[in-house]
């Protein structure tokens, strides 16, 4: 990994842009994912599906407290143990306590962004528990000691060659770049882990309030392993994941599959409603569900309810021209990257230092909004966040000064004219590129030209043109 997620924003972006291997991997993957999604949506009329998915999610968020209470009631009636966690630390403490109570030494996990968000692996490893990621992509990056760089395709930043090298080193696999052989090596290794682990941990794609059910979407089958084989199963879910009815979960599952990978449905969709039943051959003896807030209620409070609609499909990442250039790690050490990451990371705000600039890491082109299966207006949210930052005074001193100077000029026509005349004269002295745009400015303006050109000021100016035209019109009118 050449991008350091904990480095400052500009450094991260520079590292990402300089990494040729990352570019190859990102281009191969995001192009294919976007293409597959496009094919899949072309096969059906996506309009009604998006409208219905949106209506379901919006209905749920508008009734979040009632649905959570109903969910809790039904989970308990099904024999589950329900825990509430206001913060990441509370959630990891709860899992730690469950693990300790059962003397857990080994835990297997299916892919979950929520547990990445709360850094569950680090917490459990701190307790001396071995935690094994079992999604193939997550397993690869766990071996490499890296965080995921994509919501649904965590290893999108690695080429097959990189993965082969890693498996040869860590698993003693013979040299090959054949994905089938690499996959078989991982299957052998992970099968043993599934059968030995005492604890299974998953996230939650949707939870059905009317039945008390946690739903997981996977393609590999690791979700079913994790929820069926270990004696104790813990699901960690963000409080926004609840939906009212069984039918809603089935519809959203199909919307997520189409948006994420262009599949009609994923290979597996598991709906767990409690521990092993009497007389059944398998299933966990205990099922725990942790309802996690960790800033979600604040998102609602601050007026960003739209962000809570997200079903974590990753379509906005694959489509985003910025993500496609810099990849997930350049968004910092948050679990969420891309357009949706740029919105939720500063709002969850456990790590504001790496998140501050994220709302600005967008050209606001709007393609993320167009591909979103629940029609989240991401550009609008990004603009609102920028606005909030100015209002809350979190912008830098140089930004404030620049805006003050501009306001001072723009509010007074005479001063504006005089200043723009000076600026034009000044710009003519600066180095230019072939198009006549200014390619280099002295400090502090150099921070602009370091990453882009400054458009050349028009000669003659609009005001001069306007004046000339007015006098011409007056003259011809007189004739």
């Amino acid at each position, binding site marked *: 990994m050449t991008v350091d997620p904990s480095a400052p924003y500009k450094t991260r972006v520079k590292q990402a842009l300089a990494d040729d291997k990352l570019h190859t991997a990102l281009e191969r993957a995001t192009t*294919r994912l976007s293409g597959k999604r496009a094919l899949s949506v072309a096969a*059906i009329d996506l309009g009604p599906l998006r409208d219905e998915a*949106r*209506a379901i999610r*919006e*209905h749920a*968020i*508008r009734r*979040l*407290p009632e649905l*959570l*209470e109903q969910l809790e009631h*039904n989970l308990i009636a099904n024999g589950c*143990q329900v*825990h*509430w*966690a*206001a913060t990441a630390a*509370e959630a990891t403490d*709860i899992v730690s306590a469950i693990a300790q109570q059962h003397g857990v030494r080994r835990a297997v996990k299916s892919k979950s962004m929520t547990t990445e968000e709360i850094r569950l692996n680090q917490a459990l490893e701190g307790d001396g528990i071995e935690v094994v990621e*079992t*999604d*193939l*992509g997550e397993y690869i990056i766990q071996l490499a000691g890296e965080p995921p760089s994509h919501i649904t395709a965590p*290893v999108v930043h690695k080429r*097959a060659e990189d993965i082969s090298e890693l498996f040869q080193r860590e698993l003693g696999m013979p040299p090959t770049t054949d994905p*089938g052989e*690499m*996959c*078989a090596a991982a299957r052998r290794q992970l*099968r043993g882990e599934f*059968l030995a682990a005492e604890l299974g941990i998953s996230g939650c794609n949707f939870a*059905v309030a009317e*039945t*008390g059910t946690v739903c997981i979407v996977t393609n*590999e*089958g*690791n979700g*079913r392993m994790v929820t069926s084989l270990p004696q104790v199963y813990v699901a960690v879910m963000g*409080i926004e994941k609840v939906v009212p*009815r*069984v*039918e809603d979960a*089935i*519809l959203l599952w199909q919307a997520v599959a189409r948006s994420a*990978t262009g599949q009609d449905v994923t*290979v*597996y969709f598991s*709906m767990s*409603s409690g521990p092993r*039943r009497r*007389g*059944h*051959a*398998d299933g966990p003896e205990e099922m725990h569900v942790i309802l996690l807030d960790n800033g979600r*209620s604040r998102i*609602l*409070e601050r*007026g960003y*309810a739209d962000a809570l609609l997200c079903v974590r499909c990753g379509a906005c990442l694959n489509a985003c021209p910025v993500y496609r250039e810099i990849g997930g790690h350049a968004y910092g050490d948050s679990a969420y990257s891309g357009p949706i990451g740029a919105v939720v990371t500063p709002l969850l705000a456990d790590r504001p230092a790496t998140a501050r600039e994220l709302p600005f890491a967008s050209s606001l082109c709007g393609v993320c909004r167009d591909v979103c299966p629940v029609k989240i207006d991401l550009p609008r949210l990004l603009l609102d966040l920028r606005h909030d930052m100015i209002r809350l005074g979190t912008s830098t001193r140089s930004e404030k000064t620049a805006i003050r100077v501009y306001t001072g000029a723009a509010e007074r026509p005479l001063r504006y004219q005089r200043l723009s005349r000076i600026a034009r004269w000044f710009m003519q002295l600066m180095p230019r590129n072939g198009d006549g745009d200014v390619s280099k400015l002295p400090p502090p303006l150099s921070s602009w030209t370091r990453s882009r050109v400054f458009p050349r000021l028009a000669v003659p100016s609009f005001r001069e043109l306007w004046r000339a035209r007015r006098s011409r019109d007056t003259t011809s009118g007189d004739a």
Partner: protein
Amino acid sequence: MTERSTASRDRILRRLRSSLSGSQPPFRDSVEPDLPDPPMTVYPPSERLSLVESFGVNLSELSGSFELAHRERDVAERVAQKVAEWIPNGEHKTTEVLSWAPSELHVARLEQTLAELDVSLFVPDDLAELQVRDRAASLEVGITGVEAAFASTGSVVLTPAPGRSRAAALLPLHHLILVPLSRIYAEFEDWLQRLRQQGRLEALVRESGQIAFITGPSKSADIELNLTLGVHGPKVVHAIVFDDTQ
């Protein structure tokens, strides 16, 4: 629930309620869209193919395979054929396969016929027991029935029950699915609607512990989006559809 968990619960719910009852509506568009009425059908209706054909074609497109047994008594023979094809085992040596209880497979005389064809069924009753688990994990074929199957996607849904282990569709490399014709629906929504009307949907979801929709073999595209099969679950999925309506 611990004291801290209860305190967090109250705090979270209070906070959500105060945000939602505030003067500012949670969404820009203050008119709430109606919750859609089931069935919410994703697929355009297809009349070109019969349900069985659609189911088979769609499953095959997803790297699964399928065959039709016109008579129920052919089923056992076809099962034995597939097992022999997957696990070549020489003359008159019995192959053990992981299975649901014969009573859950709805094929008359299945176990007896299979025994004559050198296939024996292992039906685990408790996979928490180490010996049972090891034995189940060592088998290469799993046989299950279905709660329902769906033509538009080639999916099946399995509901665990006594005699119906989750493991049979999960641990072995090969999954053999026995699908009675009467259980094939056009779409998920048809099945859901029927259960809903009969008042059985909620109970089915809750009482089975875990219901699982399965569509083709286990797969991953994590390595540069190259499709690889059999990552964790079965690599080979074969459905035998048989006519149980006669």
